[in-house]
């Protein structure tokens, strides 16, 4: 993605000003978004750039998290490892565990590689509950952020700046890495590993190295999470953490540089906002993933980059118009779908079923209106909006395709 230095500076300034712009609760979410973004970037290096799909990245995230928590307790935030440098422990342990795991898993490629990463992560996940001294048992290992360098690290704002600094540094390092010969060889590994080997490169060593670097950045993200929540629990090794980073990266666009970061940040924000609004937010998350994969296989950022590579000003204006049209149509369908899902969720809830037994089929309040589940209105409204929205999308797509053909 071609980010001009100006827009980059604007984004960094916005991030720096965040504590003064948003409330405490959103600052919390911002910390988690940064961590998710860094974790997804680490994954993106391996999956997007080097073409190795790992299903076990939670292992390196978790290793970094536990290493940081133990280091926090051992050093008390003083001496060699003051609080701000703790992510280095995550980086170190991530790198070492990545070298070991990478050595075994990169012996194979494709599905077999994915299976080995999954198996190694599950191995750690299965072992963790048995090693109480290391992983702390069910209630986890906890720690305390100690003051260092004149900061108390008691307030969220200080934690935010610490996380921001490490995330920006890491993403910059990842960018520079992609410019090194090793970074370019990663691309070669993805595109044609056989040719690379014929050219005399040791592809196994190369794969191991890239795996280790990716695990190192995952470890930093894990350590940042430990710093943020001042604890680590072995649930961090669960497979859904590994899948979440895969989903986030693909939603953002795994093959564009900042795609995974934006995917991670957006989906974390999505979870933060919707989980307090609706109990079925995981369903929406799943629907978004399926839709993105079906209609934007390059991911959100990938799609944007692709579309805006058109050079002329008129072209960009027309493109914006097209996108607005499409978004509007999708929004109509989405409102219908959300209405139906929320209506069904309320209809099937325990509370409502209790009322049915007591008082027949009472009205359901949704979007500040009362709807009777026995009448046609709610079903007609939901299904109707969805149908209209989908019809609009199809029509717009046909028109645009016809125009493109006429111009070609």
């Amino acid at each position, binding site marked *: 993605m071609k980010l001009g230095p100006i827009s980059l500076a604007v984004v960094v300034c916005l991030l720096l000003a965040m504590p003064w712009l948003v*409330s*405490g*609760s959103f600052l*919390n*979410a911002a910390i*988690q978004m940064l961590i998710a973004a860094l974790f997804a970037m680490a994954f993106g290096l391996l999956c997007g750039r080097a073409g190795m799909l790992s299903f076990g990245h939670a292992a390196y995230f978790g290793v970094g998290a536990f290493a940081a928590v133990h280091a926090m307790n051992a050093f008390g935030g003083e001496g060699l490892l003051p609080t701000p440098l703790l992510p280095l422990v995550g980086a170190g342990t991530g790198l070492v565990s990545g070298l070991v795991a990478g050595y075994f898993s990169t012996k194979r490629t494709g599905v077999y590689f994915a299976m080995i990463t999954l198996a190694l992560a599950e191995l750690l996940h*299965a072992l963790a*509950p*048995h090693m*109480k001294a290391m992983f*702390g*048992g*069910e*209630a*986890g290992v*906890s720690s*305390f952020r100690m003051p260092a360098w004149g900061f108390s690290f*008691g307030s*969220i704002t200080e934690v935010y700046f610490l996380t921001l600094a490490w995330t920006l540094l890491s993403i910059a390092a990842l960018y520079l890495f992609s410019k090194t010969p090793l970074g370019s060889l990663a691309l070669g590994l993805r595109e044609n590993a056989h040719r690379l080997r014929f050219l005399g490169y040791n592809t196994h060593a190369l794969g191991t190295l890239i795996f280790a670097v990716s695990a190192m950045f995952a470890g930093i993200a894990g350590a940042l*999470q430990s710093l*943020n*929540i*001042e*604890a680590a*629990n072995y*649930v*961090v090794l669960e497979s859904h953490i590994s899948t979440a980073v895969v989903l986030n990266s693909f939603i953002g666009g795994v093959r564009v540089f900042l795609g995974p970061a934006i995917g991670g940040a957006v989906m974390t924000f999505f*979870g*933060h906002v919707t*989980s*307090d609004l609706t*109990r*079925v*937010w*995981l369903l929406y998350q799943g629907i978004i993933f399926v839709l993105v994969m079906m209609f934007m296989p390059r991911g959100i950022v990938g799609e944007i980059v692709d579309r805006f590579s058109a050079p002329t000003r008129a072209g960009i204006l027309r493109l914006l118009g097209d996108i607005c049209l499409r978004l509007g149509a999708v929004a109509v369908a989405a409102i219908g779908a959300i209405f139906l899902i929320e209506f069904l969720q309320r209809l099937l809830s*325990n*509370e*409502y*079923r*209790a*009322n049915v*037994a*007591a*008082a027949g089929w*009472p009205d*359901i*309040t949704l979007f500040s209106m009362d709807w009777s589940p026995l009448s046609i209105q709610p079903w007609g409204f939901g299904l109707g909006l969805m149908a209209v929205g989908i019809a609009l999308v199809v029509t717009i797509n046909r028109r645009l395709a016809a125009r493109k053909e006429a111009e070609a």
Partner: protein
Amino acid sequence: MAFRSYARGTAALALVMAAGTAQAEALKIGLVETLSGPQASTGLLYRDAVLYGISKINEAGGFGGAPIEVLEYDNQGGPVGAADRVRAAIADGADIIIQGSSSAVAGQITEDVRKNNLRNAGDEVLYINLGAEAMELTGSKCHFYHFRMSPNAAIRVNTVLDGMKEAGALGTNVYAINQNYSWGIDVQDNTVAAASALGFEVVEETLHEVNKIQDFAPYVARIQQSGADTVITGNWSNDLLLLMKAASGAGLDARFGTAFLDQPGNIGNAGAVAEGHFVSTPFNAEVNAEASSAFMEDYKSKTGHYPSYVEPAAVFGIQLLGEALAQVEPTEDGVDATALALALEQATVETPMGVVSMRAGDHQASLPMVVQEVTRDAVYKADGTEFGFSPVKVISAQDAEQPLQDSCEMKRPG
């Protein structure tokens, strides 16, 4: 929505009654529970119980003349989400955090509350743990602002053994089979520790993988070989169901003493296989039938279902909190958590099962336990089957109590 509108109605009523008496800000309680995802079913039970319990307090006038406000947060099932939501709850002005459905989440919340209180002396918050039973929460992780309202592994195991002995169902050869993580190990250790006092021998101990085993036949074969006549297990969910089914399939002639047989769905799923097995919980509707059934019906009229599994103990816990709240004065921004914690240590509440109180030493609730057997004669049937839980023995709070853990070093204020 009857329950919610009902709660709103009582809140409005209390507000009208309170108008003019006090201007203090309403007390806010943050419910940081698992409300979505695979673990939500238990989280939603806690939510029902808390909303019911608080609506009762509000009916009686609320706190400081104003109804108590419950703010709901979804911890997304894990410690990371919980840490986030606890911060949000405290930022929104909650003075009390309530949670119960997971020990992993509880471990995070109790530590977050402890650190928050260290950093914000004078503006402390209280953590009411309604059901996370890991021993270290009242052991190495215990602190002054954490209160556990549910039993723990030691209480569950010792009471179920006690009740089975009374019913003549406890043999001399006991087999301990548990899940291999902190909870299962706690159950196993407590079973072994009780052996000499109750006159049985633990013939074999097994720890197995958690929720991964599909076929328990090999384990059941070992139980058969060992000659055990009683099996004590802390297993929950599938690990309990599949174990009981395998035992029944192999014709194993042994009684089971369990901790979580009353989880909704278990009896429905196991059916006749569960008959004759035992469980020890803080409530059974046939004990003190008059008061209990009044509670059952009142709960059902407001939430739509009879209280089961974790709900009764959670309601008792909220009642205990209500008693403590009645003893403290409201402050400008809600309540002084330290005064409330001191009041909670003194509070007692009369429940249909007996007196519930709070032990000051480690903030573990001291509550009566009912050992019960799965039979066809039970008055209240479980999961719409012909089976239910019949009480075998009621164990008073004093008798159910277990010694303090040495690892708990509580720093008291002042």
